[in-house]
């Protein structure tokens, strides 16, 4: 693994299948590979049902992967015993989408934030309380909030509590699963600013899962686009937006409404046909071919592999790579 020294998180051919009625398999994540450097943010985008949240949860260890490697800081966490895993997962935390559902309504803010510290037996009661106060300050709340319950807070404040909770055990890697999609525009910016500030101060590594591309663009160094359990394109943020290669990425970008009437009037958006196929019976070959306007017979036969177009720009599409 010596050539991967700068790849803090390395996911190789990760698969997560769920068994559904009878012998059928739902291929939620079907062989994705990517890396994240230390201190970097990788955005993972795609429509609902594409497997992005399952991927995040599997990397965190909430699901057992069907196949594949998850190497974090040089260690394959799929091979750890449960005891080692508990120790190791201190390095990974998650921030969830819905700040209303992810906080136990019967616990005080201070208990919620300190829960991880208690589980990992970090510090006495006093030091824990001091830590809770520090964390509240760090996320822009104050220590008077510690004894209150989640229902006394607004959505944005709850998400701050969720962030403080994730930061309590000093993780190095945070998976943010749609952390702002439940919030209002004006509050979204506050939370994104906080995440950016914390990353700089604490040198955190983020996997930022979202479907809102404008926020993803702002926070990510690189972006991976997922479709039906597979990655179709990965590139650094500028290239992904300015030098888009995969037809799906193009359609996804053109579908985002822009807050500028003149732009919207001129825009010729690429309308995708139909909807996401089922991941129980995905189409043969390229899974996107059923909705792709450039699909040929070759697309039905062979599955396209992620191929490097430039140094840091990978795409899985026969139409793009056949020209090369």
């Amino acid at each position, binding site marked *: 693994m010596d050539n991967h020294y700068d790849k803090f998180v390395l996911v190789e051919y990760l698969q997560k299948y769920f068994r559904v009625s009878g012998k059928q398999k739902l291929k939620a994540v079907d062989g994705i590979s990517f890396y994240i450097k230390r201190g970097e943010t990788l955005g993972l985008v795609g*429509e*609902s049902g594409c497997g992005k949240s399952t991927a995040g949860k599997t990397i965190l260890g909430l699901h057992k992967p069907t196949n594949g490697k998850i190497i974090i800081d040089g260690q394959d966490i799929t091979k750890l015993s449960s005891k080692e895993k508990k120790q190791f997962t201190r390095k990974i935390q998650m921030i969830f989408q819905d700040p209303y559902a992810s906080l136990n309504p019967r616990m005080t803010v201070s208990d919620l934030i300190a829960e991880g510290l208690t589980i990992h037996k970090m510090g006495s009661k006093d030091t824990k309380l001091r830590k809770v106060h520090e964390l509240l300050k760090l996320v822009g709340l104050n220590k008077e909030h510690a004894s209150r319950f989640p229902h006394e807070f*607004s*959505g*944005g*404040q709850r998400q701050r509590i969720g962030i403080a909770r994730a930061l309590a055990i000093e993780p190095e890697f945070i998976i943010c699963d749609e952390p702002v999609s439940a919030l*209002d*525009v*004006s*509050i*979204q*910016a*506050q939370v*994104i*600013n906080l995440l*950016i500030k914390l990353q700089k101060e604490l040198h955190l590594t983020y996997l930022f899962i979202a*479907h809102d*591309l*404008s*926020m993803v*663009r*702002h*926070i*990510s*160094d690189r972006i991976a686009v997922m479709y039906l359990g597979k990655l179709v394109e990965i590139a650094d*943020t500028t290239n992904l*937006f*300015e030098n*888009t290669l995969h037809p799906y990425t*193009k*359609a*996804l*970008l*053109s*579908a*985002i*409404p*822009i*807050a*500028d*009437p003149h*732009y*919207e*009037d*001129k*825009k*010729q*958006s690429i*309308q*995708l046909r*139909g*909807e*996401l196929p089922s991941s129980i019976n995905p189409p043969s070959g390229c899974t996107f071919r059923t909705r792709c306007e450039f699909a040929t017979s070759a697309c039905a036969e062979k599955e396209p592999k992620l191929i490097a177009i430039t140094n840091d720009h990978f795409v899985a599409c026969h139409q793009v790579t056949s020209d090369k």
Partner: protein
Amino acid sequence: MKKILDIKNLTIDFNTYAGRIQAVRNISFSLYEGEILAIVGESGCGKTVTSKSIMRLLPEATAQVNNHSEIIFDGQNVLKLKGKELKKIRGDEIAMIFQDPMSALNPTMKVGHQVAESLLIHTKITKKQAFKEAVQMLKLVGLPMAEKRAHEYPNQYSGGMRQRAMIAIALACKPKILIADEPTTALDVTIQAQIMKLIKTLQADLNTAIILVTHDLGIVAGMADRIQVMYAGQIIERGVREELFYDPQHPYTWALLRSVPKVSQKSKSQLYSITGTPPDLLYPPKGCAFAERCEYCMPICRKDPPVETIISKTQSVNCWLQHKDAPKLNKPSGLKGVIHGQSL
């Protein structure tokens, strides 16, 4: 253009255990034939309560509509209508599509029958004819294999298909007004684009007037003819699309537009954000509701509510900055600009 809906001094309170929440505070506006009017604002600003009151869908036990309020449609005050008269308008003349199609559809009823239902109520038609018409409607909204799908239940539909079914139900009786309350918030962007295009095409074909309730400025930019911005139960600025996007006057409208990340902005730089949260409508502030969060707040703003200032025939704003004695400001930069620079 002809006015088809006229709302005057609409005030709605909710009685809760904590006290009276003043959800909508004395708003007036009109809707014209064949236009798309967008109502934008953050959650809790009263936009959904306003739209539901037009359909008289608010819970009568807790929601109190002030006696001076008027919602005039077709010469009659909707708020005063009873039983049969109300039924005649609801679903036939004014229809609504909701944010979450799964909870708005009946899970125990075939979709075809749900579309046929309103036709059976409002027109003299046999069941068979109504079902036939329902299938036609489902075809119109672009449901694949409509004949077969009409016999299926909502749980067999995807999110996008459910929203199409809801639109079919709403438009079955060719209403004069369609209220769309966050119609695509629960959907993915590619499906959202399909649904928005569908709504726009149908609107042009049927000449329906639409009230589009949303918090997404991107959708507003592509869809609306006129826009009303709501904050804390009041309309704080209104105007046609170009005015609100290119020449907004209210600091809250500026803030909303500035909160959207721009392409020109350096990545990972500080995004503009509005500090604080909207006021508690149990005790709405005496002066301007936005004063607490406003960068340009003056002493008068906390004391007295601002009056409406007319900017143009179509644009008006409620802000003390418009007063002749107020300091002349340069509007903040960063209001305009597309979010991503992908070539078209």
